[in-house]
């Protein structure tokens, strides 16, 4: 009745666009990664270099530092978001007047452009204008200057990420919590379990898939954060917040080190995939082991 060729015809434009703008760039970066190509070099033409770029990467302190920073950033941000988001989701589980209104406000950061989030936080933190440095100094005598102090800059980017993305965690976990069956909880209460026991033995295992999915999605996003941080700190002071996306940009554009930048991109892509896979497998495996005990 309906031939498959019509189906392929409907899919064709989508596949064509994804191929040209998704697959071709990937293949291209794969090729460039194995070449020496820098417009500023003595020989600016592309030439085959084997695995030389990858060898250089292993000993590149700046690259390794940037990777380490990115992981640290993702770790602090995602862990805080999950804990805080779970707590907020629990608070949304009760009914109270104005719940919908508060929820709308809570959703607001999710739709703001990352670059505007960065602008907002810059206005909050820039010395001489922002209220944060002013009041921290006036009330606590604390010298807050993210263009000078490394740790302050780092944790400000984490706090900004938490402000921006905790609502997503809250709402995903809220959706998951609302769909949990009621019987196990009632049974546990009858059996005299305390709040912590209920949380640890019933809520957490039941929420596992939702938490895993949320961690996975947040991790992916945290590892590729660029816009907000670029706007807030520009990667500074020094290289204190130069996360991997910013670092690749620096190598590729101002330095025009195409071959090396491509190798770096490939390793980053590879590590992102491996990281997420390990995270997923690790979390699943630990739970399974516990169940066997």
């Amino acid at each position, binding site marked *: 009745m309906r031939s498959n060729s019509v189906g392929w015809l409907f899919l064709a434009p989508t596949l064509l666009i994804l191929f*040209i703008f998704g697959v071709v760039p990937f293949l291209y970066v794969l090729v460039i990664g194995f070449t020496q190509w820098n417009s500023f070099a003595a020989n600016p033409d592309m030439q085959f270099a084997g695995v030389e770029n990858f060898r250089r990467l292993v000993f590149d302190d700046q690259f390794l530092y940037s990777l380490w920073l990115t992981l640290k950033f993702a770790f602090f941000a995602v862990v805080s978001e999950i804990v805080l988001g779970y707590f907020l989701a629990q608070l949304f589980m009760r009914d*109270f007047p104005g719940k919908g209104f508060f929820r709308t406000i*809570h959703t*607001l950061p999710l739709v703001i452009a990352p*670059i505007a989030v960065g602008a907002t936080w810059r206005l909050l933190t820039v010395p001489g204008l922002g209220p944060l440095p002013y009041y921290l100094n006036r009330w606590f005598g604390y010298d807050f200057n993210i263009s000078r102090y490394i740790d302050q800059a780092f944790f400000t980017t984490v706090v900004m990420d938490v402000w921006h993305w905790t609502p997503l965690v809250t709402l995903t976990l809220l959706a998951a919590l609302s769909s949990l069956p009621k019987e196990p909880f009632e049974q546990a209460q009858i059996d005299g379990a305390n709040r912590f026991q209920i949380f640890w033995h019933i809520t957490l295992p039941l929420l596992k898939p939702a938490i895993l999915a949320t961690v996975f999605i947040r991790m992916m996003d945290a*590892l590729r954060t660029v*816009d907000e941080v670029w706007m807030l700190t520009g990667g500074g002071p020094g290289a204190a917040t130069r996360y*991997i996306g910013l670092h*690749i940009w620096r190598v590729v554009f101002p330095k025009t080190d195409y071959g090396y930048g491509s190798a770096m991109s490939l390793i980053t892509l590879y590590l992102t995939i491996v990281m997420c896979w390990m995270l997923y497998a690790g979390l699943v495996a630990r739970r399974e082991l516990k169940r066997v005990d």
Partner: protein
Amino acid sequence: MRHFRRKASGPLVAIVFWTVASLITLFPVYWMFAVSAKSRVQLFGSPSFLISSFFTENYLSTLSDPAFQRYMTNSIVIATSNALLVTALALLATYALSRYKLPGKENLFFWTITNRMAPPAVFLLPLFLLYTQVFVVADVKLFDTKIGLILLYCVFNLPFAIWTLRGVIDGIPKELDEAAFVDGANTWQVLTQVILPLAKPGLAVTGILTWVFAWNEYLFAATLTSVNARTITTGLAEFVTVTGTNWGRMAATAMLTLVPALLVLGLAQRHIVAGLTFGAVKE
């Protein structure tokens, strides 16, 4: 006993808690608004949270700036074209995935999402080189053109749209198609006269969220355009990196960038989370 006492004090505690939480959420945005409503002189000294007199100059000079007008027009054109293109193509693609027995279609479906998950920084260089050097050879101009960005944004918006619409199209009973076919309709008529009206709400949500993703995008817009096709997000970034620090105007520009986001919050709030989690979470 304890249990009951908690419940009785619940609503008030919750309201107080959420009021504080909402103030924390709103404060950064409010401060930006406050800065946008002040003159340079008013911004000196101790930060004041009150807006004594609305300083309209920041908004007026921004809105009358030809560069800003161009950025704004570009952003509107790019986001709207992208949303329309993506929604239309995704409808066709999802219909094919839902109704035809295509070999390997589930693999294809999962493959599409990898395009969205990949870190964009990885694709900056190859796309930049393809746009400036390779695709030019074939007499195609994509660098610094709106069409270049519109097509590129499909790479991460199409997977999103397909994943969102899959549930919508699968939810429309196949019997309706069959009945229309029996009545002698062709595939195109079934798609436009049976599926389209039923899928309208889903298509609207998909279109709106796609629009926001395209509007909010910065990294590719910044690297793949130079003058003509710059978008509002790149304009905002330029306030810091190029023109220095006219905070009032930067805040005004950021506020104007935010307006569509606020509209979306009103229109598609319930679907934002599903949209951001590839449809993995339904509210």
